[in-house]
């Protein structure tokens, strides 16, 4: 995995019609890991933009759907490892919800590769970098999401 | 079955790895070498490698030494070790698996005796569907004729009681 390759200008970047990857992350683990990645100057694709939640258990499925409807090509959910949730069991609820959401997304024409759920602990800055970079490549391979092309929103 | 075969190191490594990759060999990773199995084994005194030692050999990749050991042939599957093992390691299953591998790779030497007895037994069952003690003794005696006289006294007693 070569982060540098991913960061090269991709056709479409100039026009801004590049990929959009939104990362919905929990404050206590993944967001902290993101800050750590920043402090240690690890680089990941700028297409990835983070939205801070207090807990992955707070993430309503509507938020994920909204992301896709408004033009996201990929949605990344990052939370604490099971058992480590700051609020005890929020991440477990997130896991269940996302599992239930996937078939719905498939039906709507969004393949499951566009939605990734990952457990990133607060000290795992490197892992977050790897995950985000890898996820962005995968989304890039899939191309822009169908919703975006429909200009629904 | 009588030949002493020296195995190629690379093949041995593969075999060792394969043994500990799946159950029952994989459980040897959990062993804390406490020695309860050895202490509980009724035949430990006769073994050249205690059950714990066998587990240590497997973990170390010294599979060949384990396969050549007399110990694996003395295990009678009494399960005392498994019952008391604090990690629940299936020692009798490992012993069994080692026996199978030993036979496959023609490891056991004549002094071990047990394989020959097993063979005699299995042959009988294959041929006749049942075992006749007298025939079994004779069959075994072909491989180890020096053992038979020692057992004559016992044979007489059994004959008298109609057990043969």
């Amino acid at each position, binding site marked *: 995995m070569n982060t540098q390759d991913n960061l090269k200008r991709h056709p479409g970047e100039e026009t801004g019609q590049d990929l959009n990857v939104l990362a919905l992350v929990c404050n206590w683990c993944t967001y902290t890991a993101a800050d750590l990645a920043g*402090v240690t100057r*690890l680089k990941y694709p*700028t297409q990835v933009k983070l*939205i801070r939640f207090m807990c992955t258990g707070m993430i*309503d499925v509507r938020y994920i759907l909204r992301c896709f409807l408004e033009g996201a090509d990929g949605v990344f959910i990052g939370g604490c490892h099971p058992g480590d949730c700051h609020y005890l069991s929020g991440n477990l*609820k997130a896991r269940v919800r996302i599992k239930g959401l996937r078939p719905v997304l498939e039906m709507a024409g969004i393949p499951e590769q566009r939605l990734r759920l990952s457990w990133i602990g607060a000290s795992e800055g490197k892992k977050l970098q790897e995950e985000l970079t890898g996820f962005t490549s995968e989304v890039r391979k899939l191309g822009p999401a169908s919703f975006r092309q429909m200009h629904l929103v | 079955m009588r030949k002493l075969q020296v195995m190629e190191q690379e093949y041995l490594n593969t075999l060792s790895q394969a043994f500990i990759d799946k159950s029952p060999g994989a459980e040897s990773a959990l062993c804390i070498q406490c020695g309860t199995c050895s202490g509980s084994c009724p035949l430990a005194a006769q073994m050249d490698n205690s059950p714990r030692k066998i587990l240590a050999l497997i973990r170390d990749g010294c599979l060949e030494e384990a396969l050549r050991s007399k110990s694996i042939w003395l295990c009678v599957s009494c399960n*005392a070790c498994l019952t008391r093992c604090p990690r629940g390691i299936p020692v009798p299953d490992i012993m069994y698996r080692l026996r199978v591998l030993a036979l496959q790779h023609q490891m056991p030497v004549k002094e071990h005796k047990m394989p020959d007895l097993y063979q005699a037994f299995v042959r009988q069952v294959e041929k006749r569907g049942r075992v006749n003690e007298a025939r079994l003794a004779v069959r075994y005696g072909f491989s180890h004729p020096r053992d038979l006289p020692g057992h004559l006294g016992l044979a007489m007693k059994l004959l008298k009681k109609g057990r043969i």
Partner: protein
Amino acid sequence: MVMNNQEPHVGVYICHCGQNIAGKVDVQDVARFAKNLEHVALARHYQFMCSDQGQEMIISDVVNNGLNRVVVASCSPRMHLPTFARACSRAGLNPYMLQMSNIREGSAWVSLDGKQATRKARALVAAAVSRVQKHRPLTTRKIGVNKSLLVIGGGIAGMQAALTAAESGFPVTLVEKEASIGGQMAKLDKTFPTLDCAACIGTPKMVEVAQNPDINLLTHSEVKEINGFVGNYTVTILKKPRYVLHERCTGCGECAGVCPVTVPSEWNEGLGSRTAIYRSFPQAVPGTFCIDKKDRAPCTGACPAGVNIQGYVQLIGQGKYREALELIRERLPLPGVLGRVCPHPCESNCRRTDVDSAVSIRALKRFAADNASVDPAAPEVERPEKVAVIGSGPAGLAAACFLRRQGFQITIYESAEHLGGMMRTGIPDFRLPPDVLDAEIELILKTGIEARTSQSFGQDFTLDSLRSENFSAVFLAIGAQGGTGLGLKDEGCSGVMDAVGFLREANLGRRPDVGGRVVVVGGGNVAMDAARMALRLGAREVTVVYRRSEEEMPAHAEEIEAARQEGVKFSHLTQPCRYILENGCVTGLECLSTSLGSPDASGRRRPEPVADSEHVYHADTIITAVGQRILAPWASAVPELEWTPKGTIWVDEQTLQTSIPWIFAAGDAVSGPATVVQAVAGARRAAEAISRYLDKKEPALDMQPENPRPEKNWNPLPKDVKPLQRALPGQLEPQIATQGFQEVEKTLDVEAAQLEAGRCLNCAVCSECMQCVNACEREAIDHGMQAEEIQVDVGGIILATGYELYNPEPLTQYGYGLLDEVYTSLQFERLNNATGPTQGQILTRDGRTPEKVGIIHCVGSRDKNHKDYCSRVCCMYSLKFAHLIRERTGAEVYSFYIDMRTPGKNYEEFYNRIQAEGVHLIRGRVAQVTDVPDNPEDAGRLLVVAENTLSGKVLRIPVDMVILSPAMIPAAGSTETARLAGVSTDSHGWLTELHPKLAPVSTQSSGVFVAGCCQGPKDIPDTVAQASAAAGEAVALLSKGWVSTLAERAVIDQDICSGCGICTQVCPYGAASILPEKRTALINEALCRGCGSCSASCPSKASTVQQFSSRQIFSEISGLLKAAGS
């Protein structure tokens, strides 16, 4: 204050952060971009927004430019959100009208290319601007808290926590369920690694706790309920009765010296014993003794009169016969009678039956009556009220006795010539000698009761005459003195008589002639008495005819057996149908055979006559013993007295009053024919009722039932009791017995009685024999003490419920519980301890000093089959034991371990020291401990078998004693206590801390903390540290006098909420509940942590987490994606 419902005016501030942001992101470009976003009033960029100048900039803009929302694009909100929020507050803007955008860690530092980084920063700022438009002002509240603590558990952890907290001035309530504080540590002898004596370091703490004015010590108490939330807990505590008054007890121990009951000592871990009144150890705090009183023994529970059976049996066992008799007579004034005739329901409930056979309670009662004498005195206080007792059977005599004790003036009226009722006329002399009865009656009358015989109610005296003699109450105890016949034709003929009349004649000395052959019809005790009497009156052949089978006979088994022994014949399944007469005299009884059909109303199977089965029994006399009826020829003169359809006197169940208020009744007259003890029981209740009636008091609630049934919390059956069959009183030879009327049953001899009393298992432990009360000079004992429930209000709770040892019995290979010389570590501590069963000497059970000792580590620990964790302290204390054994006995010590775990400060050094002392440390887990040694000279020793894994040899070592180091497990009841406080436990029962590394003393329940081994196995230094930490955190939480609610918490829109309750299911903090009346959900502000589980789960989106509402999130998403496209 800025009005927040107006049009948004957003101020955007882009921070350079020196070169950190500006070096990569074109901050001016972003500022320009931001200025063009909707609702943005101004956009600035500055070098260091977090500096004073930066903050002043924001403040001045808010004040002067009417900003009502602020976006700061700088570093992570985790860093500076509070800084900028404060700045907004200072400016007069609600601090929640702020959104930060992380363009440092979020863009500048993680992007390679400046242009891309700038584009990303724009998107992030656009997101923040979009989101902040949906922000609303939020407030937090302060909730007042109670600055006091509850500590549950009085071991070293609890004591330390209490002491630390009390230092801060917080009042602390310390609750301990045992009678003394000190916990497990007080049982230890020396502690590692310093070999300090546990008592030397523990007792000062115990004393400090007791004397600290800020600590309210509640021992022998348990927490029953905890309500409320952080800072505002209301705790219900049950103070169990000690039965000894703390203020008066001096701890002298005289009481324990006279207590007859011994049970195994729990403090000594089952080695040695203690008495029912006890103090665990000499340095107990408090030093007050305590009585172990469980539920009333089943024998006492079964006795209709509620006699304290365990009590008098224990007194007999001690040789205190007079005291035993006095105890019996408290509830039963006729012990000699009942010791002979009672059908002993107590024995049927005796738990000794589970071992071998019931204790011979009735025989013991008779023994006491025969071997002791009492001298009942007249009552201390005389009362003027007069009570008339009509009838001198057991009910009448007992009532008279009980009422006289209360001081009333009693007159007994008896229609017969002699007192005694059915005891005189119904029970034959060979079961109840008349002199015994006379003596008992005399003892009752002696207290000042007048008895008038040959006085028939209705003839010699009437209600009017009683009224005129100023009697205030009447007790009717007329019994059921009438017999009944079979209802067959010719019943009145000569030779046919009812059993009651027959027995009366015989018992009064008039010997009716019964001829040679007698048939008795009936299956009850009266039938048996009549049959045996007939034999003594000359009958050659006596046959008892009964229509059901022997199992259904109501007579007591002993009576049937006695009759059979004496030669009475039985004809079961036989029903009489006709008297056969000759010349007006009966000569026989024609009967039909019966077979048993389906059960009738009484539950017994109905006898159905078999056709054509007539047969005749020849008889000179036929005695019918099929029932009794109440004789009341005066009844018509007293029409106000109501009767039941069965022909008994009607009484109110509660008051025992008849339909005439001043007349009470009990005994056979009310119940129908029953036993003597039941009559006495009824009389006692009636006496209580009459007393209350005369005092004009309401009837007592506990008048019914007489003896509340016990709840079966009894002394467990001891494991080592040796079976010994019950003593049976001797009997006269039947041939001799039937010659005359002497008493057939003999009394027990002294030795037999003592042995028999010793068989009692002391089910209630304390037998209430009251010997301790007699012995206590300070009158400190109060057997009537009741449990008390109190409530305390506290702000925080510390759980310190401690540990116990795993029972090693399931590890049968080690022989614990089977082999005598296998001990647990705590048992060995007790052997070592000077206050233990051997005064600190290490001795085997038969008193020898061991020459070789084996110590086994990891018994049940690190074992998948039992507990898979390591118990942490065992290696250290095993080394300690090795040292102490060597030092005190010089014995060879063999310590078998898997790994030697000595991680603490000075622990490895301790290990080194022990290694140097010649202890055999063997690496190898013991496979087995057996009592079959290899060599004959080791007979009597134990053999320890283990492989020494380091040498590879299997060792078989004979030893005299084996000490096991069992796993530590949470103390019994800790899971339930934790649940009360809202603390969860893991799969092993250890209480769950909030975070294993960062929050080891707090829990997910705000305001509840844990300390000590209840959270996991640990040694004393760590326990004390954790206890102080828990106290520190608790005090820190509450010290300000208030706690803050979180602004970012969930709220329920009451208009939308449908009350589905899903939020209550998903909230990890139990903060959500359904309001009972409104049926909508409500979130407790103090408990909500703002996790958002409820809002994400809410089907109607009635639940929102403030500052993370759907609108805000949607705005943020839109902002991000729109900007990204531009």
